[in-house]
């Protein structure tokens, strides 16, 4: 197996004939933090949707540990160990924080089909293990005090933490973060940066779309810049930062983001 855990090869995705991703390629190494930047509407979220199976790209290959995963349904992608957060937060708003995070334990739970009707000793053991794991994650993300609070009642910054905790609960190999700092204040962003480093230290590979340049430049080992669906630059942060093509793309676009 190659040193790359995820390889995207010449991927294109069209919407009604319009190109959203244009012949895009990138390779993500195991254990690294990989940044993706680009102006709004560049196709970054669409790329993540292609990796996680929400969309199937018309062209190209997506290789996970060398195996083609293009066209695989989202729940199977998650079972493979690729978990994500959403740019537009998608929590189960009426459900409590603990229940939200518990959804991440779904693929790790070993309950049998009949445990939905009848509980067995193995069920009780499994159930307890999973809830304890949820407890650990609530500690890690400082969410314990909100355990029973409906997720939808909490502030934006807290909701972003819940989404990360939920994805991490599934013990992913690859964690995909779509604008994790969007809507966060300065302190929250600093906390988030520390959190992401800790997650990397656990051995999780991270792919991240982020508009907060300071954060993405400090965290990422490698960055790909996308504009109009195509790669315009790629490299280590210091290179990308000074690349005239990148500066041009950002000046030429509306730099204010609506965080839609």
């Amino acid at each position: 197996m190659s040193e790359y855990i995820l390889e995207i090869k010449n991927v294109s995705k069209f919407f009604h004939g319009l190109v959203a991703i244009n012949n895009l390629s990138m390779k993500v190494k195991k254990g690294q933090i990989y940044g993706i930047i680009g102006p709004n509407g560049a196709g970054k979220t669409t790329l993540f949707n292609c990796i996680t199976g929400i969309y199937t790209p018309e062209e190209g290959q997506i290789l996970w540990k060398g195996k083609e995963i293009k066209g695989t349904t989202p729940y199977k992608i998650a079972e493979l160990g690729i978990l994500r957060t959403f740019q537009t937060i998608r929590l189960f708003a009426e459900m409590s924080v603990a229940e939200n995070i518990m959804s991440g334990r779904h693929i790790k739970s070993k309950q049998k089909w009949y445990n939905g009707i009848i509980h067995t000793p193995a069920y009780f053991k499994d159930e307890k293990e999973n809830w304890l794991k949820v407890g650990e994650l609530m500690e890690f993300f400082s969410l314990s005090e909100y355990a029973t609070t409906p997720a939808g009642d909490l502030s934006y910054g807290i909701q972003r933490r819940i989404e990360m905790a939920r994805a991490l609960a599934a013990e992913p190999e690859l964690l995909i973060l779509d604008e994790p700092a969007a809507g966060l204040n300065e302190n929250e962003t600093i906390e988030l940066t520390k959190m992401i480093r800790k997650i990397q230290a656990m051995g999780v590979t991270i792919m991240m779309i982020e508009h907060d340049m300071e954060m993405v430049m400090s965290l990422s080992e490698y960055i790909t810049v996308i504009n109009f669906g195509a790669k315009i630059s790629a490299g280590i942060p210091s290179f990308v930062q000074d690349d005239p093509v990148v500066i041009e793309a950002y000046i030429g676009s509306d730099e204010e983001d609506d965080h839609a």
Partner: protein
Amino acid sequence: MMNKTSMIAIALLIFMGFYPLFVDSAWLAVGTTFLVFSVVAFSQDIILGRAGVFHMGHAMFFGLGAYTTAILNVQFGWPILATWAPSVLVPMFFAFILAGPIIHLRGDYLLVATIGFNIIFIQILENDIFGLTGGPNGIFGIDIVRVFGIEFASGTYMYYMAFILLGIALFIMRNLDRSKFGRAMFYINKDEIAAQSMGISIRYYKLYAFVVGAGIAGAAGSMFSVQYSAVSPEAFNVTQSIMFFTIVLVGGSASLPGVLIGTFIMFVLPEVFREFATARYLVFGLAMILTMILRPRGIWPVRFGNIPSYLKKDVK
């Protein structure tokens, strides 16, 4: 420590347990049917309230259970006890093969498809297609439950059998809610994209809800056929399906007390106001409209956050 809800539940349990001692046979029958309909409503709630599937053909599964018992008993001479397992398994089987091809449909399309199934089911019953269903008149002369020569003939026996069935249904609902399966249904209901992204197969859990819901409805159907010692098509038509659907939404989706309240309002109240003849349905329709406007999540909405106490230690 006991909260208000558990106290109400225990008071209700005691009342329901002693109910046959205070009432005449007509009201006893109303009580029994209330229990049976509650079980059907809970099974509808698994599909509609939990998995969030707009299923408006549930009377079909209720009817499949009832007709399974009726046919096996009257046409083939099986004792009622022996028909119980088939009356659960037959609806489960049909739920699996019928829901399979429509489960991916969007809410409104699926709703129309399930109504279609219900209509076809009634047509089959009325046309006596296999010479087994007795046509529009249905099947008469269904036996009583006999165990080792003991005859469970009286209305009081019937009531307590339905009472036990409701207990079993509640036990299953509680187990479901505290399992990976019940939770998966809620996640799908609240956000399909997020649920899938967490590794949950939408199709598997919606089908699971259908199959379990159909089995429970079938058990209730078997009980219903024995209570009236007869079955006929109109007890299982789309109007009945609409009633079960409405019970869940009026009472409160995925809420155990809500579904009981819904069954009470939609079934028992009309019985109480029987002397007002059809005018009582006016009140009934108004109640449905007003609930949806004033309490869109139902009279007793579901409350989430039932997590193990050892996770609540830090809650402020």
